[in-house]
């Protein structure tokens, strides 16, 4: 990777990071929390979306909180719980108690050993995160290849942040492209540039998230600076991959006029003809916080009105950018 630009961020660009140029390693494993077939909203056509576990960001509005930690994690869906209490007995750490409507897991005690999952009848408890080899994932992805062909779809890596597992994603995409599939990377943009470039070699489309342009607010709401994200956005814009900007519209955070204007200005400079997708805030992830025994960080924030969403679309269009609402 001779053209790799040297980056100053020591954390993100580890010089010892394995170089992928030698060829994809098919035996690599990825930590995956879901493979969703017939995905219709994560890129063109009918797709299979591979959700990778682990994310450097901790966005307040995250709808996949189970994706944030890299390690395997216990989750409990109280809707299915029948209060049998077998998990309480099975837990050697005494981390589980019954609440009357479900269970509560003391996360300080829980070591995610999974013993409780083994005894759970109604499958309310489950472990999130599976390690799968590239071959295993490719095998599953290829099962729908005829649907991709007729709909011009393909495979998408989402997360979590796929770039945290860049060697795996690069290897997976390489194999998928060999099989003639369209590949889409759905990324927060935060990751090593080197890793990003290794993935980009086998990527047809990047769905690139831009959340908040103001760095202070970005740090406050996602837990991390946006410097690397903006830098990587330029890297993607300069690559041959197709690029779509995705912007979650979070009430009081990213939906302000100032942020929309700043985002539009930044996007204009990236490359001509770029498309912006706006994703109105939804609360579908709410229950997942319960499943992980975490409070829902956005409290009772309400989704944006249709009028406001339309207004924001109008602002992007006024800046000469094509803009679509994605739900």
């Amino acid at each position, binding site marked *: 990777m001779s053209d790799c630009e040297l980056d100053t961020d020591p954390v993100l660009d580890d010089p010892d990071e394995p170089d992928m140029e030698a060829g994809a390693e098919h035996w690599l494993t990825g930590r995956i929390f879901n493979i969703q077939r017939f995905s219709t909203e994560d890129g063109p*056509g009918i797709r299979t979306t591979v959700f990778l576990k682990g994310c450097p960001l901790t966005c307040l509005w995250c709808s996949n909180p189970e994706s944030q930690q890299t390690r395997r994690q216990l989750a409990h869906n109280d809707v299915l719980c029948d209060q049998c209490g077998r998990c309480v007995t099975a837990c050697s750490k005494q981390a589980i108690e019954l609440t009357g409507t479900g269970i509560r897991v003391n996360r300080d005690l829980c070591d995610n050993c999974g013993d409780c999952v083994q005894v759970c009848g109604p499958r309310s408890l489950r472990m999130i995160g599976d390690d799968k080899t590239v071959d295993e994932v490719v095998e599953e992805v290829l099962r*729908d290849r005829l*649907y991709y062909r007729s*709909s011009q779809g393909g495979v998408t890596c989402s997360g979590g942040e796929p770039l945290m597992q860049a060697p795996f994603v690069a290897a997976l995409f390489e194999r998928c492209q060999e099989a003639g599939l369209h590949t889409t990377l759905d990324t927060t943009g935060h990751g090593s540039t080197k890793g990003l470039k290794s993935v980009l070699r086998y990527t047809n489309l990047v769905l690139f998230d831009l959340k908040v342009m103001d760095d202070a607010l970005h740090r406050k709401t996602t837990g991390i600076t946006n410097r690397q994200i903006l830098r990587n956005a330029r890297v993607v814009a300069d690559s041959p991959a197709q690029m779509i900007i995705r912007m979650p519209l979070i009430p009081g955070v990213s939906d302000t006029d100032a942020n929309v204007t700043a985002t539009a200005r930044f996007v204009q400079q990236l490359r001509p003809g770029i498309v912006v997708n706006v*994703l109105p805030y939804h609360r579908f992830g709410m229950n997942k916080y319960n499943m992980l025994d975490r409070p829902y960080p956005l409290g009772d924030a309400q989704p944006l009105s249709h009028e406001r969403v339309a207004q924001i679309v109008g602002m992007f269009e006024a800046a000469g950018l094509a803009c679509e609402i994605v*739900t």
Partner: protein
Amino acid sequence: MSAVIDDLATATPITVRMTKIIAAVLGKIPLAEINKVNGFTERIQRMKQRYLASRPTICGQRARYWTESYRTTEGEHPAKRRAKAFANALAKKDILIRDDEILVGAPTRHIRGANPGVEQLPIHLAALLDRVDVTAGSEVTVTQFADEDRQYLREAAEYWKDKYPAKRSFETENALDGGKMHLMGEARNALRPPLTPQLFTPGADMDKIMAIGFRGHIKQAQEHIDAIRTRSRASGPYLSHEDREKIEWLEAVIISLEGMIHHAHRYAALARSAAKMEQDPRRQKELLKTAEVCDRVPENPPRSFHEALQTYWFVAFGQEIEKATTNAFVGRFDQYLWPFYSKDINEGRLTRQEAGELLGCMFMKWLEFEPFMFLGQVGKRDHQEISPSNYYANVTLGGTTRDGKDASNELSCLFLQVAKQVKTHQPHVSLRYHRLMAPELLEKGIECNRDHGGGIPAWFSDRMGTEYLLDRGVRWDDARDWAMAGCINTSYPKSFAWVRNAVVSFCNHSKLLEWALFNGMDTWTNKKLGIETGDPRTFTRWEQMLEAYEKQRDSFYDYTMKNFRAYEKSYYEDAFYFPYISAFLQDCIADGRDVTRFGGRYQQLEAFSFVDRGFQDASDSLLAIKKVIFEDKKGTMADLLDALKNNWEGYEELRQACVAAPKYGNDEDEPDALMCKLYKDATDRCQSYRDGYGRRFTMFRQGAAWSSWAGKTTGALPNGRKSGTHLGDASASPVQGCDVKGPTAAMNSVCKLDSTFIEGPLLNMKFSPATLRTKGGQQKFASLLDTYFEKGGFQVQFNVLDTETLKQAQAAPESHRDLVVRVAGYSAFWVELSPVVQDEIISRTEQCM
């Protein structure tokens, strides 16, 4: 036969029409115009309201006049007696024209009137009549009838009690092995007696009817009679037995057709006298128009779309009066009506809006079909238990023409436009999909799925339907002319009657597994209905369990074949004649033979069938036994049997282990391979038999809500299913809640099944209307359909997730684990959503509907 072809070739009106058709077919279907049509006008709304306000009502008039005629025709030829009874009923039954009606005629005098076929099941009908509280006869459909009707039916039942044609078959079967087959029927694992030689699911050669009218058919029948007499006279003074039979039958045809022509004239007269009394000049005009139409058709060929619709309706409700069973004829509605529609539109005599309202009237007529008895068990109307108020009228749209070109037209689209507006539960609509179908029709079909919500239209592979008929010996051009009939019979409508109401067996494969688990004992009847295949507690290998099931299956088929052989001959000999229905089937008039006496073009299509279902639960159960008992050893076979006997009470842990075992429908190799094996082995076994006429049997694997009906008598199963609950829906669909990997995976699983020789492998799927909201979503849906059919899928029906289903899913999450929420960059199953968010989605769904 030659007579028929000559007629079509020389009929000038058709030739004139053909030039118009070509002019209208070229170019794009004007979808924007179609989308403006409102088929649910105030008139139709009022009619639908009247339907909703009325209750299913049993009408005794058919039985009364039918029997009245029979009392006076003793000693005559049975075909003629039928024809005279039919004509008598048509001449005397009450007729009425309701407010707002443009299309007229009905099988009964009630909006929701059911005609009991008294001559088929007199004893059972009598038993039903003696029940004190008949009005609450079924949990599902509350039926009522007037005292006079009760009296007519009682008298008719008395007359028929020792004359009904099923008597001999019935007695033969009851005598065999002490009525074991009857017990199997009670366990809902066989067709229960009586084995009524009756006729279901008729077809009709509508093209011919439209070209020459009933009068033309009468003329042909008369010519055939004259030809026979002339030929016979040349060879001597006496008619041969065969010739005499033919003449009797052809005369019966003439009596039947004249009966319906006369019936139409009665409507014309009624309309005319009603017009005289009518104050409103607009309504008066409509009534006069109705009079004009009924004077013209069905006697003569129709000249307009309105007349053509009325012609169809006379044909169809006449059939229902003659046969008095469910399953009404519709056929390729958009094909045989197209010449009239396009001509009227092109010549400016009809607007699309007017055509839409006429179709709305047609839907209201279809709604009037009310089922009465089906399987006829004493005192129960099982059919209604299966499917309340569904008469199984099935409209086929789209597909290919007889020469293999796209058959989509504007009328196909208009039909779907009206269907989604009137939102009625019947008729079924079947859309034949192929890659060359007009994109406008594809779009309209998807839109109708979304807006109607009730799985209308169902999608069918055009190619598979044709191939199915080719395999049954149907000529290429005829095979392309297929239509769905009944709930899901692949038919050649121009010569199809589905005479084979008596199926060889009604096999519930989950039941067979149950017998294998309990060494031949049936848990519902507590009798040994299966054979002894060994106590599973002694099994040391899973393969022994599989073998036990296979032995039960083979022995069951052999046993039902033995029964079938015993009654087959009497079944055919005693069957009723159907001169009215046969008159419209290709080659019947030319052959001089009734369809129940081997008239009609394709006898193979009339072969008896094996109805097999319940594979999914059987297969998933067998695999659960393999995984949980023999591999993971989470329990012993003895534990499992105890658990099943106790309906899993106290064995929740074991049940959950079984529920968690791999299931068919997720594109996983092991469960799918086992399902394929069960499916295919059953087919091979059944296809190895031949009936008394050397025909192969039909493999009929439809759904028709059978799953809940048979589920009631099926005990707990090792896949975790509890006793008495639903079995897997349809024959190819994964068990509800078990396909957790989405539609592509489920479709892949279904496409692994070998559906050769099978009629009606069904896949039912649920879809959120939000998926179909945008153009992009609709395109993805189209790609999904396309790939499914290219992979060899035959049928798929998309039931849109309505708010009611979602509310059920909220209340019973464990059986809705398969529902996925598809949102950008987000991954979740429905059961993982918080109630607040679920409510949000429910209200969103409401907005989309």
